[in-house]
């Protein structure tokens, strides 16, 4: 029962939200309480998984390879926990960060369908089921990205929708082929079939389709162009939500599939992952350096940091895998924080363009602090979380003797620092340009519901870094489960 909570809670909230109509007060109240309830449920699930191991439930009571299986292992539980935590904070920010019109058009409804898709994708134990949750997720994100129908949004929406649909079609085609080859779609059953087969090369045609499908959603190197041309168009709250969740679900899918199916170190897949990871990191970070819009800089950095996660997956050792998971969790916190601070800057000055803002540090030192924490965490300054994420990844790389890729990762880290310092210099230290909308013409006081989530995210990156040892232990446990698919298979396929 507890296994299905990440789907059931958002579903209940969506039904309630549909019942209250367009009363903004109730929409906000139900929406935010639902997000909090989801966070509590994720805590409960995390605790249960730590106590009892992998949770499995069979929908409809059909035994495993035939019915729809929901599985929560430690990785899923951690992803649920961190995603519902950030989503709750983004929800709090959205109370004032999203205008009334968009609230009336039921922002929170699509927020919760998005969470339902994300939660479903994390707990699905069946490829087709996973595809359906992916689809629920991207459909809600289509609506969110175009909510409000501004010209920029519609334009970004066209690119976003087209590319994501391509990803879905490729993923679906892979599912069709793999069903034809093996006759099963259950993740665990399929893993067993692949491991017992002596013709695993036959699976490659499906896996490359899966790889491209997940690659488009995760925005890795040749497939990332939709992300920077659409992420800066909706209100920054929505961008922060997307940055926290969507690409990471793609990375989660990749980690899940690669650990279940590519069991021995296969040079083809490893080289593919490492080369694409290196290119993703370099191109993301270099294009970010040329931008002057805060949201676009941060969007390009999403791509560069996806490269780090893929690199950790490509190193293939249990330690590097745990490091990739650590980096992913750090990135969810820090990136969301950075985007939300971007939103605060825009509230204050009326612009995202670095050239037309400045002098913020003199006016609002604390705003500087809240930006400083996530930005330096992204760049990898100790003792913030990004330092440990990168440190573990680099250690994993040296242990696996992948010196070139690791060297590129270190270099990319320095360029990331450059971009973050650029935002810092332009927005905070540079004297304000003369034609700036002075606070007099923009007397808006920042709302407390907008500052608190930003502060919590900033300090949680600090806390995450300071307690890196404990988290790394949990994550290594999760990576151990991933490296031994037998545990997963046994938990799912054991007779009820």
């Amino acid at each position, binding site marked *: 029962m507890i296994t299905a909570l990440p789907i059931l809670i958002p579903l209940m909230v969506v039904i309630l939200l549909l019942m209250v109509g367009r009363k903004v007060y109730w929409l906000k109240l139900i929406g935010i309480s639902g997000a909090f309830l989801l966070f509590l449920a994720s805590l409960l699930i995390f605790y249960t998984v730590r106590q009892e191991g992998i949770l499995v439930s069979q929908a409809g009571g059909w035994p495993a390879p035939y019915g729809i299986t929901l599985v929560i292992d430690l990785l899923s539980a951690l992803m649920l926990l961190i995603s519902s935590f950030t989503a709750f904070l983004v929800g709090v920010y959205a109370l004032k960060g999203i205008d009334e019109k968009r609230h009336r058009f039921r922002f929170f409804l699509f927020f919760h369908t998005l969470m339902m898709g994300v939660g479903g994708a994390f707990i699905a134990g069946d490829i087709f089921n996973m595809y359906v949750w992916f689809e629920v997720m991207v459909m809600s994100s289509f609506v969110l990205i175009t909510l409000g129908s501004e010209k920029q949004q519609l334009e970004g929406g*066209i690119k976003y929708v087209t590319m994501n649909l391509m990803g879905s079609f490729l993923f679906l085609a892979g599912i069709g082929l793999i069903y034809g080859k093996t006759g099963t779609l259950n993740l665990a059953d399929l893993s067993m079939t692949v491991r017992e087969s002596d013709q695993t090369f036959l699976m490659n045609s499906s896996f490359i389709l899966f790889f491209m499908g997940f690659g488009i959603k995760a925005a890795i190197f040749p497939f990332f162009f939709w992300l920077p041309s659409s992420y800066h168009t909706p209100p920054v709250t929505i961008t922060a939500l997307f940055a926290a969740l969507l690409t990471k679900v793609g990375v989660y899918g990749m980690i899940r599939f690669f650990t279940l199916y590519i069991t021995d170190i296969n040079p083809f897949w490893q080289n593919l992952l490492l080369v694409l990871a290196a290119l993703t990191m370099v191109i993301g970070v270099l294009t970010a350096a040329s*931008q002057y819009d805060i949201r676009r800089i941060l969007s390009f950095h999403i791509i560069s940091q996806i490269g780090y996660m893929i690199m950790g997956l490509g190193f293939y050792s249990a330690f590097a895998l745990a490091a990739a998971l650590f980096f992913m969790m750090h990135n969810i916190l820090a990136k969301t924080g950075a985007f939300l601070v971007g939103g605060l800057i825009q509230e204050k000055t009326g612009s995202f363009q670095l050239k037309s803002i400045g002098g913020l540090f003199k006016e609002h030192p604390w705003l500087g602090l809240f930006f400083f924490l996530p930005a330096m965490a992204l760049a990898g300054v100790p003792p913030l979380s990004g330092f440990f994420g990168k440190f573990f990844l680099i250690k994993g790389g040296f242990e696996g003797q992948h010196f070139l890729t690791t060297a590129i990762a270190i270099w990319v880290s320095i360029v990331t620092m450059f971009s973050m310092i650029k935002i810092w210099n332009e927005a905070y230290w540079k004297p304000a340009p003369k034609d700036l909308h002075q606070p007099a013409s923009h007397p808006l006081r920042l709302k407390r519901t907008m500052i608190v989530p930003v502060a919590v995210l900033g300090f949680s990156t600090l806390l995450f870094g300071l307690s890196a040892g404990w988290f790394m232990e949990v994550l290594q446990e999760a990576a151990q489960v991933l490296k031994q698919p037998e545990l997963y298979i046994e938990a799912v396929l054991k007779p009820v």
Partner: protein
Amino acid sequence: MEIMLSIITGVLYTAGVYLLLRRSLVKLILGIIFLSNATNLLIFISAGMTEGKPAFVAKEGAEQTGQMADPLPQALVLTAIVIGFGIVAFTLALNYKYHKQTGTYDLDQVKETDKV
């Protein structure tokens, strides 16, 4: 039957990709529809077809005569078709809104968001 359907799938994929690369927004949506249906057909074919046999198990006591068709790919395709409907409805609404705002269907105009 398989050969014919395979050819149709190939044609649909080709036409879909061709339409995606055209400049018109409407043709882009047609391309999406083609690709979506091509994928549905691909699932259907690759799961193997059993001609003339329904996907039913024989009644209790009665003898199961011969093969029965696999019901799973049919269920998958049905789900995928429904999702495809949703997608098409959304893209058409997007198309309508975009045209109302800008008065153009030309995809070459869709480059505002990529400017530095």
